[in-house]
């Protein structure tokens, strides 16, 4: 039923639904208002519930947006909730299109109805209720000209985005600041982070997708990219370790050109001193509290090493029996399996979520069209009426039509909520990629260790042979002895590298473990949140829709022919 085009279409539809949102609801590190919690508690007092989920509906078809309800007093329609317990969730869900006197007005008049509160407003864990926050916004894309004259006549143009940060983290100098960055800077940031934070689950950056930029309208593409960048930076900002990293700090704060080494510079970097550069800029000698993994000293991750590692992995392969990287940690392997399974399930679930969203959307649309068709009929019958029976029928139709149109709007609102909630699934796909990255870091670190080990053993082998040969020569073999000494020096250096590499590997393992733990915890909370949000909005809107149709059933009760 769902061909690939449909998938694409519905993805686009989902994206466009998402894009219409006023503000990004994905900032987990936002000051969480715990609106939901307070709503739940106030519900049990059966007082005026606070607003929890507001639909940011910029659909021009449904203007005017805000119709604040003037009925401060009677907020709970007794007929709307057909049970006294549990409380009616229809009251919890604010809709600007209600004209049942169900809820009190929005918290600050009509204005805030456009403002979508963070939908996953349930705090994930008590600690995020503390004052630490960092909020990043990406805006105002601008075309700029490349100042250096390139070979292309007319110069190269590119787009920059304004990146505004508000934070109270002590690592940052200041509480609000703004810089302009281009996409290339983001790539640099991502690359530097990948190097410095091996073993961590670093959120994947937006794609370069050159092809798309040629296919799409420039405007659309820029907007999509802006959204993607914002999402990415917010995810970085919500990572407990990375949010305090030098790389991110520099990216968000340093004015002018981004003072991070670009990827083309890295190849020529031989000294690990270059890693210290960002820290030097800020002048503080102490690094961040979490130990950043240092590249192995004495050559760093230079090309020579890389070459050897490649050879090692190849020789491991050709060994036949052992896999390229010998990973003996069973727990790790199990975890990896699990992560893979999880990823598959998330993919599957998010696909089905997309088709659910489409089906809800279609339902709403068709219901609306039905309503409109009946409105036309109503008008027609009224205009042409000769008999009273026609007027009665026109009235019946009008009631039906009105409710159908209302129900249609509710379906659409519900859908934009559903999109928000189920988008958690999409988010986690990105995170799964980050996990893969972290595991890959571990594997490559292990490979480094193995490479060094094998190098040491081959060097030692050579040394042994030389020693044996030199011992045969009476009085010593000056040239051989010299070689032996050189070898022994190399062995020593290599052993040092090996030790560093082992430490690095251990550190990465540790990082892995911490991250996976954190991910598991957060995943649990995030998904529970998602489910709750999803379910609450389903309940709330189902109640509203039920009310709307109950009304029609009452209005047409004279036609009840059921013999009970």
């Amino acid at each position: 039923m769902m061909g690939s085009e449909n998938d694409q279409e519905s993805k686009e539809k989902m994206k466009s639904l998402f894009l219409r949102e006023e503000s990004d609801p994905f900032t987990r590190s936002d000051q969480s208002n715990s609106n939901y919690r307070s709503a739940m508690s106030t519900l049990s007092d059966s007082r005026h519930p606070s607003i929890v989920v507001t639909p940011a509906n910029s659909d021009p078809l449904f203007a005017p947006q805000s119709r604040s309800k003037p009925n401060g007093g009677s907020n709970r329609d007794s007929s709307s909730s057909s049970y006294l317990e549990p409380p009616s969730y229809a009251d919890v869900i604010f809709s600007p299109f209600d004209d049942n006197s169900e809820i009190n007005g929005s918290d600050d008049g009509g204005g805030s109805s456009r403002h979508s509160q963070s939908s996953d407003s349930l705090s994930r864990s008590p600690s995020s209720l503390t004052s630490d926050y960092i909020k990043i916004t990406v805006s105002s894309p601008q075309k700029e000209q490349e100042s250096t004259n390139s070979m292309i006549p007319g110069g190269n143009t590119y787009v920059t985005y304004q990146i505004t940060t508000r934070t109270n983290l002590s690592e940052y100098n200041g509480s609000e600041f703004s810089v302009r960055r281009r996409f290339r800077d983001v790539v640099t940031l991502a690359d530097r982070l990948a190097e410095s934070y091996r073993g961590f689950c670093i959120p994947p950056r937006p794609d370069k997708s050159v092809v798309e930029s040629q296919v799409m309208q420039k405007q659309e593409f820029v907007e999509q990219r802006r959204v993607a960048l914002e999402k990415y930076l917010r995810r970085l900002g919500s990572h407990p370790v990375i949010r305090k990293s030098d790389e991110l700090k520099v990216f968000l704060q340093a004015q002018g050109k981004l003072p991070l080494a670009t990827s083309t510079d890295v190849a020529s970097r031989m000294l690990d001193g270059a890693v210290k550069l960002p820290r030097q800029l800020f002048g503080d000698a102490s690094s961040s509290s979490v130990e950043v993994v240092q590249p192995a000293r004495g050559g760093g991750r230079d090309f020579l090493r890389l070459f050897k590692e490649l050879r090692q992995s190849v020789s491991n392969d050709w060994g036949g029996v052992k896999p390229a990287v010998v990973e003996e940690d069973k727990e790790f392997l199990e975890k990896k399996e699990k992560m893979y399974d999880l990823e598959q399930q998330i993919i599957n679930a998010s696909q089905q979520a997309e088709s659910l969203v489409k089906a809800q959307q279609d339902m709403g649309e068709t219901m609306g069209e039905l309503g409109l068709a009946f409105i036309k009929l109503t008008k027609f019958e009224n205009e042409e009426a000769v008999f009273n029976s026609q007027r009665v029928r026109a009235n019946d139709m009008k009631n039906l039509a009105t409710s159908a149109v209302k129900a249609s709007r509710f379906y659409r609102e519900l859908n934009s909520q559903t999109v928000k909630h189920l988008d958690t699934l999409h988010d986690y796909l990105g995170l799964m990629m980050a996990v893969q990255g972290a595991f890959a870091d571990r594997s490559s670190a292990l490979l480094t260790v193995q490479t060094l080990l094998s190098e040491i053993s081959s060097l030692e082998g050579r040394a042994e042979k030389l020693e044996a040969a030199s011992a045969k020569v009476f009085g010593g073999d000056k040239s051989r002895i010299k070689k032996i000494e050189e070898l022994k020096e190399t062995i020593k250096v290599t052993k040092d590298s090996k030790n560093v590499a082992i430490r690095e590997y251990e550190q990465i393992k540790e990082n892995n473990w911490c991250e996976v733990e954190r991910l598991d915890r957060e995943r649990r909370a995030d998904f529970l949140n998602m489910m709750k949000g999803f379910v609450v909005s389903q309940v709330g809107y189902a109640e509203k829709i039920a009310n709307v149709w109950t009304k029609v059933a009452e209005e047409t009760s004279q036609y009840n022919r059921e013999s009970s």
Partner: protein
Amino acid sequence: MESTEQTRSISGSMQSPRSPSSLPYLSVSVTDPVKLGNGVQAYISYRVITKTNLPEYQGPEKIVIRRYSDFVWLRDRLFEKYKGIFIPPLPEKSAVEKFRFSAEFIEMRRAALDIFVNRIALHPELQQSEDLRTFLQADEETMDRFRFQETGIFKKPADLMQMFRDVQSKVSDAVLGKEKPVEETTAAYEKLKHYIFELENHLAEAQKHAYRLVKRHRELGQSLLDFGKAVKLFGACEGEPTGKAFSDLGTKSELLSIKLQKEAQQVLMNFEEPLKDYVRYVQSIKATIAERGTAFKQHCELAETTKLKEINLDKLMLTRSDKVGEAEIEYREIKAESEEATRRFERIVTRMEEEIVRFQEQKTEEMGVAFHQFAKGQARLANSIADAWRSLLPKLEASSTV
């Protein structure tokens, strides 16, 4: 042939337990569809049960077996004989092969045929029809014979009319206008014609969306099913409490999918079908309008011919021609025909006036019922959706505060 002995008693001892003794009643039900025959020849037969105390009928209860083409026969006969009356419409003849024998389609057709016959039985004029009695009582062989006559090779004018009618509903009134150069032009009738033609358009649109809505229910049901399954699988690879929560969510989703499919069927039967029926009714009225047009044309033409004959006769009388006798006979014949045509036409007009009133009232009632059932169904569905999702919340609450 059930117990017939007691029925003919004038004192009316044999009554249906329900109705009072003096009230005449005729109630019909179309039941028990059964598939007969094989392959391409396969068809559905229905049991038609008649309960009545009318003297013209053979007994208080009669059961016969009828098939769709028998109903068509009845409708065609009534259309021929009772011009001016809006003959109740029949459900469409052929359906897409795949669905022709699906349980839902058969049930919908049965219900539609039941309504068809009952409308005839309740109509003050139509219920007197001899063809109706034949339909309700004749044994199957007789019925087959009657039906064969109608669908025989020799196409009777009625069949041509049928063909014309079938095409007509798709033909715009512009074309119709051109085919009938002589037309009534009273304002009221013009208004009626315009109303009927416009109404069909509006109704067709509403019916189209109603049908789509049925599909949407099915699609939403399907997607909830798929979503539920995916979520359950997801839950299976997660630990507690997320795993259980997901699993519960998935189960509810699957449950709701079933409810949606059920509601889809209900909407189809109780909302979309009445709208379709409404459209068919309007098409039937258009056929009657065509009949009226024909009758009017005949009336006009014959009236004109009569006049001409009269003038001619007068002329001949003046000239004392020996053709007077002949002409006089001709004139009287034409005059009789013309008067008959006028009578026919006027009867159509009168009937139509009554029919329109009845039609409007009937439709208000039937649509009201349809709307009421639709609204109730939607409310019921929404409430059960709310209930199902709501039941998950306590546990979700508990899990997240852990």
